[in-house]
């Protein structure tokens, strides 16, 4: 059975390590914050200038001067800090962020990603996505395995304009955990009850399968 978006987030949270600084994109990635293991020290980075994103505020504590990169009102954690945009992206570009999680339209088996522009539709802009994918050491894409029409999102080549090349390291979809290796996609885990064949069928590129593929442990 394919994962819910909450389960995708939960699985991604297993990639976190103590002491990590993490940037979570809009959508499913944001949900990862809800599954940080208790007692683990993970600091969330918001590219508009905040380290230490806290939960949404209570109604009486809403502060228009305190938002995240999705322009939502937030709070900050103890030991958090605020800074300007150029320093915020110095953290990203300089490789100081340990993990970046973001969504995608398409991902290739070379780690290319398209996520910002659909020709013919209104172009809103890339925001910080190009900076993040070009610079982060460790990029995980959180996505459904296929789009609304059932077309594979994991492919040989992106059909949409690129956000970055050779950058994605891992994909956690509703069907599988897939690593991007020098030889292409490699299946690491299956969603509970989802077969290897289903994953292969719904992926538009070869997948390396080595031995038994375990189910995710959620």
């Amino acid at each position, binding site marked *: 059975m394919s994962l819910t978006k909450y389960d995708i987030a939960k699985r991604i949270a297993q990639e976190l390590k103590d002491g990590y600084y993490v940037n979570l994109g809009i959508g499913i990635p944001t949900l990862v914050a809800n599954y940080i293991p208790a007692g683990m020290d993970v600091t969330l980075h*918001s*590219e*508009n*200038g*905040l380290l230490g994103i806290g*939960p*949404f*505020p*209570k*109604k009486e504590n*809403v*502060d*228009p*001067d*305190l*938002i*995240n*990169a*999705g*322009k*939502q*009102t*937030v709070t*900050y954690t103890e030991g958090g800090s*605020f*800074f*300007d*945009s*150029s320093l*915020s*992206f110095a953290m*990203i*570009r300089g490789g100081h962020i340990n993990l970046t999680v973001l969504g995608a339209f398409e991902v290739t088996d070379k780690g*290319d990603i398209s996520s910002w522009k659909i020709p013919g539709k*209104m*172009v*809103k*802009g*890339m*925001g*910080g*996505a*190009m*900076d993040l994918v*070009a*610079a982060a050491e460790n990029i995980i894409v959180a996505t459904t395995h296929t789009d609304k029409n059932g077309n594979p999102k994991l492919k040989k080549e992106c059909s949409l*304009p*690129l*956000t*970055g*090349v*050779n950058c994605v390291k891992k994909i956690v979809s509703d069907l599988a955990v897939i690593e991007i290796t020098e030889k292409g996609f490699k299946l690491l885990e299956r969603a509970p009850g989802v077969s290897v064949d289903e994953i292969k069928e719904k992926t538009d590129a070869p997948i390396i399968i080595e031995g038994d593929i375990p189910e995710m442990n959620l």
Partner: protein
Amino acid sequence: MSKLINNAAEAVKDIKDGMSIMLGGFGLCGIPENLINAIYDHGAKDLICISNNAGIDGFGLGKLLNKRQVKKMIASYVGENKEFERQMLSGEIEVDLVPQGTLAERIRAGGAGIPAFYVPAGYGTEVAEGKETRSFNGKMYLMEEGMTADYAFVKAWKGDTKGNLIFKHTANNFNQAMAMAGKITIAEVEELVPAGELDPNQIHVPGIFVQKIFQGKDYEKRIEFETISE
């Protein structure tokens, strides 16, 4: 020489059609509300506006867009504005989309006298078209140029009569770098104090970067997405 001016109208009076203006803020957070309203009233046209976002319909930069005062917009994300969308799709407004970190760094570089620098963002994408690419230590980069503007409009939390500025929380965002990059930088502040009252160790923007400063008023501080927890 006093940097103190009375209000936003005085700040913008010399702005001419066709000039470039940087405007601080991220979404509607930390935008120079008074200065935007003043340039709206002033009516200057064919402006080149540099701002991370383009406001919303009828507020922030959206006001200038509605009045067709903007010829070109340089931004990283412009999606929250129907009138902007219309002008963009019809080709009435020119739009230059820049990756957010590259935009911030280009502005800082402009203020710091660095004419160009290399970044990885955008390599292999359409952002790289027409740009010089180059390898350093086995990784590919684009050359990006520093950026300055005729004016920078910034909004700070506190400021003093010497032009020193302090920001609050995420209302800093692009304001700090833009303050460095305006040929004329005008700051509006929520609280204006005499020189000497701010802790000299805590200044985000030293006064050398600020040519004019005034006490802002009637801040609306609209919120785009009010998200709350129980």
